[in-house]
């Protein structure tokens, strides 16, 4: 108790210095948390993917379509329980800044593959009945203030023209990892329009989504599928949904590595700043530590005093930084819109923030604590702080 009182008083002896150190910590820890959250958001698609879903796409590139008539053969593959498909629509809502993913899907087969989309039954029925209807995630609807029945005009980029859809249903994610920033439309409606405008592009599928019976069989089922279409005009590449999502993330891996490096550099900088503060503090109190040792206190007591003070400052700064990360992340999320479908500060990030803060505190105190524990009492008593 006495010890805690002493280190608390020591910590706030130079209020301005301690405050500035804490401000530095708050900035560093919140920046660390925010950057980690950005990296997490990049991987959110991977995190939210299902282990019982496979994605089959063209072996050449994702931009090459697959024939619709693969469905029956895919359904016959051992281990495949469900088959659905989707096409990337790529429309623009008012302006390019309002980017969000839009897919044309076959709702009857697609929705059972995504049980994490929680949809009101009446709304679902309304969507299934209206071929011009769309289903959107809650986050997307909230962002644009859409209500059921609202018209949603999209300017096609892959499929030219202006397409006006009607909002028929909104899904809520089963958990925080579920993407709520997409728009789903009827593939049959899109395909019919394409058939009229450009018959050569009709009956083409962007990707097939396969439901499998057992996650452990994913590799085997993938091989079976790809073997089935080997040496055909449209060879396939099948992978787990996680691997499929990861292929997008890997395109920007260099950026992610840079972001992670910056987050660590920030922690290193504050570590150096705090180590300097603690070294200055220890040097100023040299005579006090020498007095304590003269009175019979062990070097370990001096070490505990310095570590305790440093960890206390780091813990306060760390917790404040952690708390600041939450509103910062919310502000960032609203600023970038639907660029990151899932953007939330994870428990792991919070734990890492606290660990980083305490690590900074411990490392910053290490050198001065070691030095002070070894000070010569006589020399220390002569010191004027």
């Amino acid at each position, binding site marked *: 108790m*006495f010890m805690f009182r*002493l280190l608390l*008083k*020591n910590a706030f*002896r130079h209020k301005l210095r301690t405050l500035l150190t804490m401000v530095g910590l708050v900035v560093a820890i919140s920046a660390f948390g925010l950057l980690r959250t950005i990296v997490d958001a990049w991987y959110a698609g991977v995190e939210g993917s299902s282990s019982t879903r496979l994605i089959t796409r063209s072996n050449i590139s994702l931009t090459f379509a697959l024939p619709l008539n693969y469905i029956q053969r895919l359904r016959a593959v051992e281990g495949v329980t469900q088959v659905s498909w989707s096409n990337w629509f790529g429309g623009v809502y008012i302006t390019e800044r309002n980017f969000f993913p839009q897919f044309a899907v076959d709702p009857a087969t697609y929705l059972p593959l995504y049980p994490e989309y929680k949809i009101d039954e009446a709304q679902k029925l309304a969507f299934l009945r209206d071929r011009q209807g769309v289903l959107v995630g809650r986050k997307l609807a909230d962002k644009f203030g859409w209500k059921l029945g609202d018209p949603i005009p999209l300017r096609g980029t892959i499929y030219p023209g202006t397409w006006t859809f009607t909002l028929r249903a909104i899904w809520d994610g089963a958990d925080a990892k579920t993407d709520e920033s997409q728009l789903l439309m009827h593939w049959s409606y899109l395909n019919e329009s394409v058939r009229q405008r450009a018959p050569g592009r009709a009956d083409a599928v962007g990707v097939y989504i396969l439901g499998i019976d057992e996650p452990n069989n994913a590799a085997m089922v993938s091989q079976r599928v790809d073997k089935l279409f080997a040496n055909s005009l449209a060879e396939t590449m099948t992978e787990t949904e996680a691997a499929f999502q990861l292929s997008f993330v890997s395109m920007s891996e260099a950026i992610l590595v840079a972001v992670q490096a910056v987050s660590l550099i920030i922690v290193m900088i504050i570590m150096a700043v705090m180590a300097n503060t603690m070294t200055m503090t220890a040097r100023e109190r040299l*005579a*006090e530590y020498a*007095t*304590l*040792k*003269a*009175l*019979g*206190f*062990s070097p370990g007591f001096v070490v505990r005093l310095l570590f305790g003070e440093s960890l206390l400052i780091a813990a306060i700064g760390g917790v404040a930084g952690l708390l600041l990360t939450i509103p910062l992340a919310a502000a960032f999320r609203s600023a970038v819109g639907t660029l990151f479908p899932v953007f939330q500060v994870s428990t792991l990030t919070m734990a890492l923030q606290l660990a980083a803060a305490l690590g900074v505190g411990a490392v910053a105190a290490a050198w001065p604590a070691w030095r002070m524990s070894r000070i010569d*009492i*006589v020399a220390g*008593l002569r010191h*004027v702080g």
Partner: protein
Amino acid sequence: MTALIRISHLSKGYVRGGQAIPVLLDIDLEVARGEFIALMGPSGSGKSTLLNLIAGIDKPSAGTIAIDGVDIAGLSEGELADWRAANVGFIFQFYNLLPVLSAFDNVELPLLLTNLSSRERHDRVAAMLGLVGLTDRADHYPSELSGGQQQRVAIARALVTDPVLIVADEPTGDLDRTTGEEVLSLLDQLVHELGKTIVMVTHDPKAAARAGRMVHLEKGVLVDEVPETIRGA
């Protein structure tokens, strides 16, 4: 009276820039229990070094220092720390109080190394503050006290563990004459009423005159008798 301190063939030297610098040379000294002794001498004479060796915060190059029968020159750092906590009270020129602690907490500090209960510690600290006349200043911080009051807090801190030996390094060096006199009277009181043994380093002949015995050091060598001119000054 029996000797509390027995110093025999004590030498101390330092090595600076590869050169050996002798500070104390073959010192022999005995201090009786309950004696108040003043160590005097010009700067660099080795009086503070001798005091530090007696207090167990420095180690001799040769010779023995027996305090109450214990040869402290042979103790390890850890043993010395424990020995100091139990046997030595320190009074410094600049008081060396912890500025973030109240007078009460500063006096309590050495008791944290004992097995006394919180209640016992409280009683002892209150008694010591009463002895130095600072009961009403217990909650004050060092910065709120005058120099003389701070030195009295330091004296209370030195006494609180009831040590056999009190070492005082220029205890009046930072005080005006009147306050210095008050502090010296308090030290007198410790010797005569509580039977404490005090070894004091001072430059001030008047302060030294308050001690029962004066020992003069010159260039690391002990001179038993202090010249009359100094004693009478």
